[in-house]
């Protein structure tokens, strides 16, 4: 009892202790190192993907354009603006940020009389905490969206090297859904795709398992999904937001996955019937991706389309330039079958210029499209390059496709570091394997490894397939012995490729000379269009631009009836050709319907 009365008085001991009050709480108390204070944004790092906006459960983030930050491929040019009347500083936006540009400082005092001033664009609106060192940063690993791509099942090098069987197996449904799950649906990829495919939407279709919807989305922008799902140059993946800290989404493989899941008949049902005939006739020269895309679009719009193809089968460069192990012919056939099902007539083995003249087409059709591709190989013109055993890659590839007999050399050298060089090297390696059981292919490229033109995957796979890749080697001469037999290729070490003006002017080190043994040398240093079919008169009439036919942005040439599309005017790329095909088709349709209206 007495204790209970007296013991409370012990509290008075504090009278003689220093108070624990913080002297100057306004200045003495910086937030901790992890403090989730006001936002910072590294404008250069930010790509404006808007993922922060998507995850914000408070609807606090707006994506708005900023002066001085233009939209470019892989960067929308938008930057987040945060409404501090909504924000709860949960930092989910920081955690989910695809580039790590958005962070938080340890500053936490912001007083305002005008509530409208709380719309804050970090990085743009200058604040004293912009350079604060401390503050919340995302954990080293990004936790909220997986960064690693789902591995694509492929044939091992040993399995694939003996045959032309397609090496990429394609995702199964579970894998595809895992991969599709990684997508944050920002849509940055759409702009970088030449055909502007609805990529986030069809990835969503994969996620939801709604493949029919996926097919519909694909056909809205691209009738070559089988092809593009395999060999597209996937510019989209280089604009992918996931690329910044992790692997980009395997957009190409997902496209292929969609088209693989839906049977051919169902695809035909899904894309619907063409429109009523318009009575207009269009001729298309070349059944490659550009020509057939034009044909597909125009046929759907009801125009009568005839395609003239010099070869015995359609597909153009995708058939005759891309080896079967990358793009099996039946896949290509399926794409073409859908196009012909739209009513497109393809006249195979009809070489314009010999079987039918351009003048004839001009008179017979309302419009003509020239989509002849690039089928002529360029030559290095080094001494000895006129030797019969010095071949062009495109010719050789075409021969392989058509099944012509090729005298497979026991050893060979490929000149070139691009995808075509890899293709021919790997094709020939397969033939060597089939015939001799061993591979002796040497590939010499001007560029060093870091600057190879070929896809890194191609290079990696080529090496797996025992192709001897030598970088920074400049071809100097084909070594021919006294009997006229080709012995190999002489190369010098490349010191530099371009001069100060970025012009092509390679410098070599003659001291570092090597001779690569080879019974055959294949030049794979580029292609050009074979424009002989135009005929002299037309060639004369058309306007040209550095060896290519001059076209306006819609693909129309200087002749009002003639359009040109695809590789022959835009350079080699499937998806570009498809995009070009759409463009030309739209232009033609527009012109034709306008004519109609005039009449």
């Amino acid at each position, binding site marked *: 009892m007495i204790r*209970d009365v007296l013991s409370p008085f012990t509290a008075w001991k504090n009278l003689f202790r220093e108070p624990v009050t913080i002297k100057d709480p306004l200045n003495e108390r910086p937030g901790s190192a992890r403090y989730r204070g006001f936002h910072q944004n590294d404008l250069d790092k930010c790509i404006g993907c808007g993922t922060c906006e998507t995850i914000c459960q408070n609807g606090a983030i707006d994506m708005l354009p900023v002066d001085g930050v233009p939209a470019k491929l892989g960067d929308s040019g938008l930057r987040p603006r945060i409404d501090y009347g909504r924000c709860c500083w949960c930092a989910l936006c920081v955690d989910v940020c695809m580039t790590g540009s958005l962070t938080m400082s340890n500053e936490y005092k912001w007083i305002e009389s005008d509530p409208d001033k709380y719309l804050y664009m970090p990085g743009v609106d200058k604040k004293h905490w912009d350079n604060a060192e401390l503050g919340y940063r995302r954990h080293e690993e990004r936790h909220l969206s997986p960064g690693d791509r789902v591995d694509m099942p492929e044939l091992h090098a040993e399995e694939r090297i003996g045959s032309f069987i397609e090496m990429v197996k394609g995702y199964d449904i579970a894998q595809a859904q895992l991969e599709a799950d990684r997508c*944050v649906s920002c849509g940055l990829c759409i702009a970088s795709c030449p055909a502007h495919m609805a990529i986030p939407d069809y990835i969503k279709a994969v996620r939801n398992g709604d493949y029919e919807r996926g097919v519909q989305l694909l056909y809205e922008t691209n009738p070559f999904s089988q092809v593009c799902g395999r060999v597209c140059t996937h510019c989209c993946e280089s604009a992918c937001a996931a690329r910044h800290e992790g692997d980009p989404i395997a957009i190409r493989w997902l496209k292929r996955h969609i088209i693989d899941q839906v049977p051919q008949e169902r695809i035909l049902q899904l894309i619907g019937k063409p429109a009523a005939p318009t009575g207009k006739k269009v001729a298309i020269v070349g059944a490659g991706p550009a020509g057939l895309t034009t044909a597909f679009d125009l046929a759907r719009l009801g125009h009568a389309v005839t395609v003239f193809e010099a070869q015995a089968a359609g597909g153009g460069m995708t058939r005759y330039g891309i080896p079967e192990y990358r793009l099996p012919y039946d896949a290509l056939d399926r794409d073409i079958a859908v196009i012909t099902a739209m009513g497109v007539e393809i006249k195979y083995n009809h070489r314009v210029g010999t079987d039918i003249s351009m003048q004839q087409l001009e008179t017979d059709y309302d419009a003509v499209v020239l989509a002849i591709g690039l089928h002529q190989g360029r030559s290095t013109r080094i001494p000895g390059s006129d030797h019969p055993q010095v071949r062009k890659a495109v010719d050789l590839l075409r021969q392989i496709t058509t099944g012509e007999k090729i005298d497979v050399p026991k050893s060979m050298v490929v000149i070139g570091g691009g995808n075509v060089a890899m293709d021919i090297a790997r094709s020939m390696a397969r033939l060597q394997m089939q015939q001799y059981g061993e591979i002796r292919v040497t590939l010499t490229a001007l560029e060093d490894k870091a600057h190879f033109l070929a896809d890194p995957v191609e290079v990696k796979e080529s090496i797996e397939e025992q192709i001897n890749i030598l970088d920074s080697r400049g071809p100097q001469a084909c070594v021919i012995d006294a009997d006229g037999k080709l012995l190999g290729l002489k190369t010098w070490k490349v010191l530099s490729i371009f001069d100060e003006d970025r012009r092509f002017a390679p410098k070599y080190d003659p001291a570092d000379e090597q001779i690569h043994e080879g019974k055959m040398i294949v030049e794979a240093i580029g292609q050009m269009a074979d424009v002989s079919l135009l005929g002299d008169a037309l060639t004369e009439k058309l306007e040209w631009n550095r060896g290519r036919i001059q076209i306006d942005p819609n693909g129309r040439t200087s002749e009002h009836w003639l359009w040109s599309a695809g590789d022959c005017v835009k350079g080699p790329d499937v998806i570009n050709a498809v995009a070009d095909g759409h463009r030309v088709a739209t232009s033609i349709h527009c012109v034709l319907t306008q004519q109609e209206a005039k009449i």
Partner: protein
Amino acid sequence: MFELDRSQYPQKKPDGTLDIDLSSGKYLKLWQGPQHPGITGNMAIELTVCGDEVVEGKTHVGYLHRGFEKLMERRTFMQCFPIVCRICVPEPDFNEYCYAAAVEELAGLEVPEMANWIRTLILEMGRINSYLMYLGGQAGALGLGVIGQWTTYVRDLMLDRFEELTGARIYHMFILPGGVRDRLPEGFAGRMEKALQEIESTLGDVEKVMFHNAVFKKRTVGVGVIEAGWVDSYGITGPNARAAGVAKDVRKDQPYLVYPELDFELVTGKDSDIYARADVRRRDLLLSVDLIRQILAKMPKTGEVMAKLPNVLHWKIPRGETYVRGECSRGEYGYYLVTDGSGYPRRVNVRGPSYTHSIALFERMVINANISDVAALLVSLHTYPPEIER
């Protein structure tokens, strides 16, 4: 010798309800709250008093209702995580933990061990905060303001530890589905030990000034008794039940996180009055201090803190329902989560211990209490209104 016989007030109507005629002048309606300093947070109690004696009490809640359970139905599983902690301000971590654990259970996620240790640490730190706040409140409700000064100060030391660990003082948002956000910062254990020592020394003072205080005892001993029989019928959990001698603690009953690996005994009381409840909480606080020391000593030094999550922007969880509970400073905290295979919860129901304590139980206990004791009584049940109405 001054107790009046009040048994005549109020009479009962034939149907059992109280016959209270306000216009008779015998009774006075007295509102405490929501703008009232003696009320724990933003709630109100409507008292009908006769003299100094309360004859009827009604709890009014809903002043803090934000509709969390509705809002969560339109937020993805990850988006729910920042908002759950707002359900209970003084001890938000249980929301984070229970929600995360429920999601993990239904999504089949395995949480890394390191994360479980850090979660336990955070929950115990939160418990200390909550109890410190309670002690200040309990003393303050009886006019002993100095305790609140001390405990709020040491609570602030704990908030500093929270700040360096989680990056925020109050809403930590650190325990997310899948694990926790980060590891302990460098030198955390040492600074924590300092804070713990300060807390212990302050608790020593609190014991001397508050628990060995004649007036405090006079006001609390024998006041506000919870009968053991009420524990089940009113759904009483936590210290309120333990002070009534019912050894009920989720940490022991259904051990979660790393509690099986920690060595502790439950704190129970006998008398079940305000004093006993305060004392149970004080000893429970000391237990938490001990648990934190154990955790920091036993926890692994390295390890993952997050499970592999799918992309949270479109995270779907298969259909299912579960209930996950934890022992918070007030009693059993639980999340009932129903999923329907979509990317959003179908239904979330939060069971805050205050729900039964401050409504059914309090309305029962307040009958025949003295007006002066009402505030102390309410505080002694340790209720936080936001978890009642959510």
